[in-house]
């Protein structure tokens, strides 16, 4: 049921900010970073965030390669291609996200919060539309694992009931015709 330990990779990322005045009297800021691979002891220093992303990409690629050793060459190719696509997206988006956060952390945080809230509202609306009743999503935002399991089971049950009802309605409307 649970994830195998070998399928988990964690990193510790450290940023150190240096604000200084250049020789020409201009104010400047420099970021120095350090990324550690928890399960492997390796670490890398970086001044450009792209280097940290590359480091993570290498470690995750190693993990994927280990995880697909027993697959056929065709399956391996497919998985690696998907992995590559994910990383291509990550390499483009992540440095920008971090840079934006560094430039204006409050703005960035509120944007993320707004996005999360928007997603939450959309989900609530969709569930309410299907159930025909109001849901208070905040009640289960901090739910435990067992609450979540129970909720998923209830949702499955409701989906089945809805499908059965739809079938019955279709049958009835067919008879009417």
């Amino acid at each position, binding site marked *: 049921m*649970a994830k195998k330990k070998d399928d988990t990779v964690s990193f*510790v990322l450290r940023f150190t900010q*240096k604000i*200084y005045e250049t020789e020409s009297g201009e104010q400047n800021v420099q970021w120095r970073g350090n990324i550690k691979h928890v399960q492997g002891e390796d670490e890398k*220093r970086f*001044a450009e965030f792209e280097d940290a992303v590359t480091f993570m990409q290498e470690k995750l690629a190693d993990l994927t390669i280990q995880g697909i050793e027993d697959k056929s060459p065709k399956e391996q190719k497919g998985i690696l291609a998907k992995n590559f696509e994910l990383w291509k997206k990550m390499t483009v988006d992540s440095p920008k996200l971090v840079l934006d956060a560094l430039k204006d952390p409050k703005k960035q945080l509120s944007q993320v919060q707004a996005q999360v809230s928007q997603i939450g509202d959309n989900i609530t609306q969709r569930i309410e539309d299907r159930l025909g009743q109001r849901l208070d999503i905040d009640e289960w935002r901090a739910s*435990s*694992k067992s609450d979540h399991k129970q909720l998923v089971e209830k949702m499955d049950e409701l989906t089945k009931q809805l499908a059965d009802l739809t079938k019955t309605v279709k049958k009835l409307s067919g008879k009417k015709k």
Partner: protein
Amino acid sequence: MSLTTNDFDKLVHLKEHALISIETLGQFQMTRESAPVSNKEWGRDRTLQLFQFLLTSRNRRALHKEQIADRIWEDVAGKSLDQTLKVAVHGINKVLEPNRQKRTDPKYLIRQGATYRLDINDLFLDVDAFETFIAIGNQHLTEDTTLSIASYQEALQLYNGVFLPERMYDDWTSSERERLQLMALNTIVELSELLLETNPAESIRLCQQALQIDHCWEEAYRIQMHGYFLKGNRPMALKTFKKCEEVLEEEFGISPLPETKVVLKMIKEK
């Protein structure tokens, strides 16, 4: 919370006289009534793992059994989780209170329903003392430098290495390890600055300690250069700058900060 000289004295007393002392920095070792607790006494590794996890989570509220399983026992669930937890809790209580009377509540490991937490008030826990000593030092930095220096020194005496090195590959320990290491680095630098004028030799030693933890810590190079300069050892001061320049170039591809170059200029000119 405001901390006073009284808190400093209490902590020093607890360090010497606590019934149970727990060391987590540099190595894990528990001492009960001045005798080390052997690995055999801990029994299964899961007992020790749970104890160390509760120590790591000491600043949080009680932990639900599923939170515990999520973080440290991903392969255990349901009835098996209850059984594993029961055995581990029993093991911890046996180590902490081997002579506890039957049907009396445990003193340290508090269970409420399906939640667990450690009450560490009467224990001497090195990481907790480390943080408190640093807090005392920081709070008195402007009005009582002597107390600050003594507190920082007490704190650094406790920092014998990274947090729970035996659990280096378990990710539930990594954020605490990182947090404590940064606190240690900042405290070493702060203390070495405080001692620079009065005891440059000790200041240099502290900077070397910081560089052993992180060889890219530029402040440590800068204070060390200053320390050598004050001791009249100009060649070593210049050598330290060279080393700093090389390390920063090699690791980040950058030069030292203008602040460090100012110290270099001062050393060269005088």
